[in-house]
Each structure stands twice: as structure tokens, then as C-alpha cells.
């Protein structure tokens, strides 16, 4: 790529270039320093990488929800993280019941399937209700209005769950068959992490099939191209939008259970950070682009788990893991500033 300097270098351009140079220098110096010091073994890096992929799969599932909605409505569904939380919180009560009665370990496959179903359905219902009450009346309002509504809805859902279910941090019961590690191509992987990665892949393939091969999927793509024309072609735009929210909700519900299985804990505020990070992932991959959301999710997961150690431990920064969220948010800021169309995003123009 040839870099063309603009004819008049404005102050902003200068700031941006200074930022670019600072980043390149910082990243290189940090990486070299860390690798030269060699505090972490190759196996440590491998474990961080696997952890990052598992974490990234959850982000990818959530990012798909952002991307799908953005594709049809051009709005950021800020409350998507709370849709994810609502599913995981509701399914907790089912899981807890199964755990106490021993059903969880007697019939783990059935139990897990039921828990997944409950979480996915709850999230789907929350997403549909959200669309109907909060977003549909604002379909033609200026962009900031639905965004502010979404922020309000996010607070409202999170605090409703806090009020309804209590503010304790709840722990999911142990699932015996998910304890320990399995060997994948000679790499020992935690079983929960393997489950997360496999389920995410299955769900993403299913989504891909749905969007590319079914009639509804085709209608969805038509709506995201041009709502007015699609409606002239006999597509019920409202129904397609609801379907989009429903699918986003289903994926978020699944992500909620996967997250709960990895971290064991659910609480009413758990939607906020994963929500923003998943949005980052969606933007990183190119918002509105399904493959991009998957790629973005995985990249962000890996960056977040490997990044702090790789970049910061060389500078003797104490407890770099505390700064993992800073890495995620910095990635968000940098992507939006330097490449708002994302890795796979076609030039969207300024719609």
C-alpha cells in the first residue's frame, strides 16, 4: 500500500501519525523486551493462546448479534450484553435445580441441552421484547435516539435482573464430565474450553447456513441491502427485523451458558464488559459482516489473553493481567480511529 500524504497536513493528521508511530514503536519494544527476557515458557504461551481462542469464541457468538442487528438496522444494540446476561442468569436456576437433584451428573448431556435451551429461549424473548418496545417506535428517528434508548434499556435490563433475582454472584454447579483436560493434536485443552470452541463452531456454521441458504436468510440479506426496496419485493421488513433480533438473542443465550461454564459464575452486571468487547470484536472484523464477527471475536480473545503479557511484562509492569481490559478497549479505539471498516469490512461509505 502506497501512503499518500495529504497536501496540507492538518493538526489532526499529525496527531494521528504520531499515534501510529508511537504504537508501532511501543508494540515492537514491548514484544522484543518480553521475548528477550524469556520469563514465560512456550507452554505458557500455548495455554494463553488456547484460553484466548475459547474466550474469543464467546465474543464471536456475541459479536454476531451486534453485527446482524447492525446489518439490518444500522444501530448499535447496546443492550445486547444484557440479553446475554439475562439468558445465563435465568438458566442458572434450572442448572442449580439439576445440580441439587443430581440430574446434572446422572444425565449430563440431557441436562446441558435443557440448560442451553432455557438460556437461548430466555435471551431470545428478551431480545424480541426489547425490539418491540424500545426500538420499533424509533425506526425512523435520528441515529443517536435509538442509541440512547439502547443505553437506557441496557441499564434497565441489568437492574431488573438484579431486582428480580437478587444481586448475589451465583455459581453454576460443577459438571463432572467437563472436568479435566483432553488431548487435541497433542495439546492438552481444558474440556470446558473444548466445549466452548466446538459449540461456537457449530452455531456459527448453522447461522451461516441459515443466512446463505434459507429463504428467510435471503430476505434478511435483502433487508440489510435496502429496506424500502425489500418491502416492495413483498418482504415483511418488521418480521425480518424481529427474526434478526431473535437469532441474535439465541446466539447470545448460548454464549451466556458457555461463559458461565468457563467462569462458573453469573451475576447481574456480567453483561457489560463482554458486551462492549463483543462490539469491539464486531467492529474489528467489520461490522455488518458475519465472517468478520467470527474473525474479530477470535482475534480479540487472543489479543486480550496474550497481549498484556507480550507487550507489558517486558517493561516490568506489575500484574499485566489487570490491564487486559485496557488492551481490549485500546484495540477498540484504535480500530475505530484507523480502520472503522474493520478487517473484512468492505468500504461501507458513510451510511
Amino acid at each position, binding site marked *: 500500500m502506497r501512503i499518500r500524504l495529504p497536501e496540507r497536513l492538518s493538526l489532526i493528521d499529525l496527531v494521528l501519525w504520531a499515534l501510529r508511530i508511537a504504537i508501532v514503536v511501543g508494540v515492537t519494544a514491548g514484544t522484543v523486551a518480553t521475548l528477550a527476557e524469556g520469563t514465560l515458557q512456550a507452554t505458557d504461551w500455548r495455554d494463553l493462546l488456547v484460553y484466548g481462542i475459547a474466550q474469543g469464541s464467546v465474543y464471536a457468538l456475541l459479536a454476531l448479534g451486534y453485527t446482524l442487528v447492525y446489518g439490518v438496522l444500522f444501530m448499535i444494540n447496546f443492550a445486547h450484553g444484557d440479553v446475554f446476561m439475562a439468558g445465563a442468569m435465568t438458566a442458572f436456576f434450572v442448572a442449580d435445580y439439576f445440580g441439587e437433584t443430581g440430574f446434572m451428573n446422572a444425565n449430563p448431556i440431557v441436562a446441558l441441552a435443557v440448560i442451553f435451551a432455557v438460556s437461548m429461549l430466555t435471551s431470545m424473548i428478551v431480545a424480541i421484547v426489547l425490539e418491540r418496545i424500545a426500538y420499533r417506535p*424509533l425506526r425512523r428517528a435520528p*441515529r443517536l435516539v435509538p442509541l440512547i434508548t439502547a*443505553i437506557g434499556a441496557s441499564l434497565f435490563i441489568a437492574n431488573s435482573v438484579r*431486582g428480580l433475582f437478587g444481586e448475589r454472584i451465583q455459581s453454576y454447579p460443577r459438571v463432572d464430565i467437563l472436568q479435566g483436560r483432553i488431548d487435541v493434536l497433542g495439546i492438552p485443552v481444558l474440556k470446558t474450553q473444548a466445549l466452548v470452541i466446538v459449540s461456537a463452531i457449530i452455531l456459527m456454521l448453522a447461522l451461516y447456513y441459515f443466512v446463505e441458504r434459507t429463504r428467510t436468510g435471503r430476505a434478511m440479506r435483502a433487508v440489510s441491502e435496502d429496506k424500502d426496496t425489500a418491502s416492495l419485493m413483498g418482504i415483511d421488513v418488521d418480521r425480518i427485523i424481529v427474526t434478526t433480533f431473535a437469532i441474535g438473542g439465541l446466539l447470545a443465550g448460548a454464549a451466556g451458558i458457555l461463559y458461565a461454564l468457563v467462569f462458573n459464575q453469573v451475576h447481574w452486571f456480567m453483561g457489560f464488559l463482554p458486551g462492549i468487547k463483543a462490539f469491539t470484536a464486531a467492529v474489528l472484523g467489520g461490522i455488518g459482516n458475519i465472517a468478520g464477527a467470527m474473525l474479530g471475536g477470535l482475534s480479540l480473545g487472543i489479543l486480550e489473553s496474550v497481549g498484556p503479557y507480550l507487550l507489558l511484562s517486558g517493561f516490568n509492569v506489575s500484574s499485566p493481567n489487570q490491564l487486559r481490559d*485496557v488492551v481490549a*478497549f*485500546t484495540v477498540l479505539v484504535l480500530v475505530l480511529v484507523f480502520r472503522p471498516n474493520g478487517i473484512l469490512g468492505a468500504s461501507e461509505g458513510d451510511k
Partner: protein
Amino acid sequence: MPAMTISAWLRRAARLGVVAGVALIYLSLVGLVGAFEERDVVTDVLKLGTLMLAAVAVIAGYRAALPPKTAAAPPGVMRLAAGVLAGTVAGAFVGALLLLAATPIDLQTVFVRLNAALIAFLSFDAESPVVGAALQIGLNAVLGGVGAVLVLLPDRFRRPLVFATLAVALVSMAEPYVRPRLDQLDMDPIADFLYSGHGLTVAASVVVFVLVTAVAVAWAPARSQVDRRLAVLPAERRRSVRFTSFILIGLLVLALPLITGQFISQVLVLVGLYLLLALGLNIVVGYAGLLDLGYVAFFAVGAYLMAILTSADGPLGAPMVAIAGEQGAFFVALPIVMVGAALTGLMIGAPVLRLRGDYLAIVTLGFGEIARILFLSDALEPWLGGVQGIIGIPSPLPQRVDFALGPIEISWSGPQVIFYPIVLFCLLAAVVAYRLAGSRVGRAWNAMREDEEVAEITGVNTVNYKLLAFAMGAGLGCLSGALFAIQLGSVFPGSFNVLVSITVLAIIILGGMGSIPGVILGALVLIGLPELLREFAEYRLLVYGGVLVAMMLLRPEGLIPNRGRQRELHEQDDEDEQYAHEAGEDVAKPVVA
């Protein structure tokens, strides 16, 4: 306009009843009813929880009896019937909840607030759930009917009645603050007449209700007369009337800490700090139309800068205090804080200015979180104190002020003292913002907010104006942070989370974007009221979220809209209504872009 058929009319009422029923169950299960069940409005007669539930049924009845814009109003009896029906349906939902709770199904493990106390409260302490359910249905039917009657009443009685009810609730809520103050001022008889226990006495509530109703009924015609008289005055006289009323309001504000005492002064200080934040964010969001969700970053930077520069424990603060003295350090530090603030604003603003509105919101949210995590992190602990924060920030103000104003001896302490500089800064900020809005800069912001590309083509340097907005917003945010730091005497990273940004946003949205009186009202309602309702603390964010959604759906221009903004809205109303008519649905009015 065609009248609705009877069955369509009743179906509509029943639908409203279902919505109200879901709302009643939600309020009960989310714990709001439980939180307010202890709180007396009228001692031994009416509790705040009852009032809240009753309000839902009354509103449902009111809405059910109000004919839609597109249809002619049915006869009065039908409207009354609709109100009663809506109330009955709503009551049936609560009744069903009571019956369900009486079955052996263990609902309390899931819905933690559905405890015995709540069930007893909802069933009016009736032993049998069937009796409780019947009572709920009957009572809600009556309340729905009351709502319908409100519709049928002429305007000049309806508003006063609603006001009077709110006034009774407000006076009773103020009990923990008013009563000790009255005792302090040796006005025990008044206190004893007004309050018994934690609520109003029956006599006092009747007096307050009648008084407010009478004043409000009388005020409506008087007000239009005053308006008419004012309108015929020459411009010069009108200005002097306005000036005088400003002075009067100003004097009242200045006297507030004297009248209200320590507790409420503390609340007012908090309102003032948030007002300062809101005035700053109002420039960024309301004037320039840039949705900044990381505004807390400026608040934090201001507080931490002040802390680092003046705390005697710090490496910078120690020499500063040694040179300038404990009280002087603040004044030396303040200009540095302001410069630092503007620089932070530019630093955050510069890279994000080319982003579209919604991306800008998320990026600034990211910045806010980065700031919070950095302040919290071990990595920067030597400078910023990590989790422990920074303590020992000297206040430039004396602890106590005693002086005599003629025969009255006045003694202020703590929050009563710091209230005055905060009011001063708020006033300064409000005047600057007001003057800016009407200036060339304000018009440039307006143009930019309405349509950035057109503004740029007509010669507005959008980059500079955006940077200016960011810098000014940052300045006010940091100022508020600095005052926050000296008021507390310490800063902790926990005070600076994303919820601060969202609270400030809610203040602006509630009051009206771009409207200074609106912002003041928003700060009073959203910061002041929750302090009066201590039980409410846990539900604050729930309500803020609800406020954001409801305002955007129902009244996007805010409670006290900016006049120009409202005009812009009404130009578009015709188009929208036409569209709504074609599409056969309600379309919300657009506000800022």
C-alpha cells in the same frame, strides 16, 4: 372521525389493563413495592408502596378512558366502564400472583423479593389468598374508575388534584430532613402537627392536599392574567421584571443552606457537582451533538489532578503545600487543573473527531473505561495510589464560618460552606453556556449538529468547533472533579465508573438537551429526589435506565425543551404524522441527529 365500536373500545381497555397488570407484577417482584412498603405517606393510613401501585391502576384507567386521536370520544359511561375494566384486568394479574404464591411451587428461590412480607402487603394482611385476590381486583377496579373520572374532569381541576397528591407524597418523604431541622429551629409544634412517626398526620395531609389544590386552582387563571399583563409591558420593563425575578430566585438559592441545615445542604452540594458535570456534557451533547459516554474520565482527571497537586502525602503536593500553604495550594492548582482538563479534552477529542455519532459514543465509553482501569491498576500505583486512592487533600475553605447579619447570628459548617463556591461555579458555567449558545460559536454548533456536511460546506470548520466543544466540556468536568476532591478530602477510583457518565447523560435527557433550565431540573430530580428516598438507592439505576428509554420514546426533547430545538421538532411533526397515518402506526418524533 368515526367512533370506535363498543367491543373495540373495551378490547383496547383490556389491553391497557394487561400492560398495567404486568407493570404491577414487575414492580412487586423487582422489589420496589417491598422497598417502599415500610415508608408511610400518611401514618397508619397510606404507605408509599400502596400509592405507587395505586398510581399504576389510576394511569391505566386514565389512558383507557382517553379516546385515541383518530377516533371520536364515546359517551361518558363507556369511558368510565373502560377505566373500571382496565383496573379490573390489572387487579386480576396481582390476584393471580397471590394465588400462585399460595401454591406449593417455590417461587422465592427464583424471585428473591417474593417473601411473606410482600404477599401479606399485597393481600392486605388477609389470611386467605382468595380474599386477598378479590380485594386486589375490587380495589384496582375502583382505582381504574378514578382514573377514568380524572379524564372526565375539566382541565382546571385535574392538574391541581394530581399536583396535590404529589405534594402530599413529597412533604411526607421529606420528613427525615424537615423534622430535625424544625426541632433545631424550635418549631416543635409545627413538626408535631405535620408528622407522626415517619409520615404525615391525617390532619396535616388533608391541609396540604386542600391547600395545594386551592392554590393550583386559583393559580391557573391568575397565571394567564399575569402573562397577559407582562406581554403588554414595554420591552425594557419586561427585562427588569425578569431581572428582578432572577435576583429573587438567586437570593432564595443563597439562603437554602441556612433554611435547610446540614443534611439537605449535603444533598445540594451533590446536586451542584452533578449540575456542573451536566452543564459541561450539555455543551458536548446538547450543543455540538457529540454523544460522549466517557465523560466520567474528565471528572476523574480533574479529581486526580487536584489530588496529586495538593495532597501533602504526594511527591508534587508536598512542595506545593510547603510553598503555597494548605489553603493556597488549591488556588495554585486550579488553573493547572483547568489547563490539564482542556488538554485531556483535546487528547481524547482529536483522534475520534472523524467518527460517526454512534462510533464516537462507543469510543468515548472505551476511553472512560481505560481511565478507570488505569486509575485502579497496580501498574500506576506509585503515582495514583491504586485501589487506596489519594487522601489528605486540603480544602481551601474554612471548616466553620460564623458571622452576624444584624441581629441574626449565622453559623455555617461543612457542606453549608462549600455550597457557595459550587453555586458560584455553576452560575458561571450556566452563564457561559447560555451566552455561547446564542453566539457565533453556538450557531456553528447548531449547524454542525443538524447536518455536519452542510455545515462544513457553508464554511464551518467542524474539526475546530468539535474540539472546542470537547475542551469546554472537559473543563467543566474537571472543575467538578476538582471540587469533588476537595469536598471529600480524598479520591478513590471507585467513584469514577461508567455509571457517572450515564447518570449525567440521564440528567440532560430528562431535562432537555441544549436547555439550561432543563439541565437544572434534571439534576434536582435525578440527584436530589433519590437522596430523599433512601430506600430507593438500590433502584436508582433501574429508574435512570427507564428514564432514558421513556424519554426517548415519549418526549425526546426533554421536560423543559430548548425553544429552538422544539421549533425544529415541530417543523418535522407534520411530515411524521403524515407518514404515521400512511403506515398506520405511531412514529416517534425525531430530535437531534
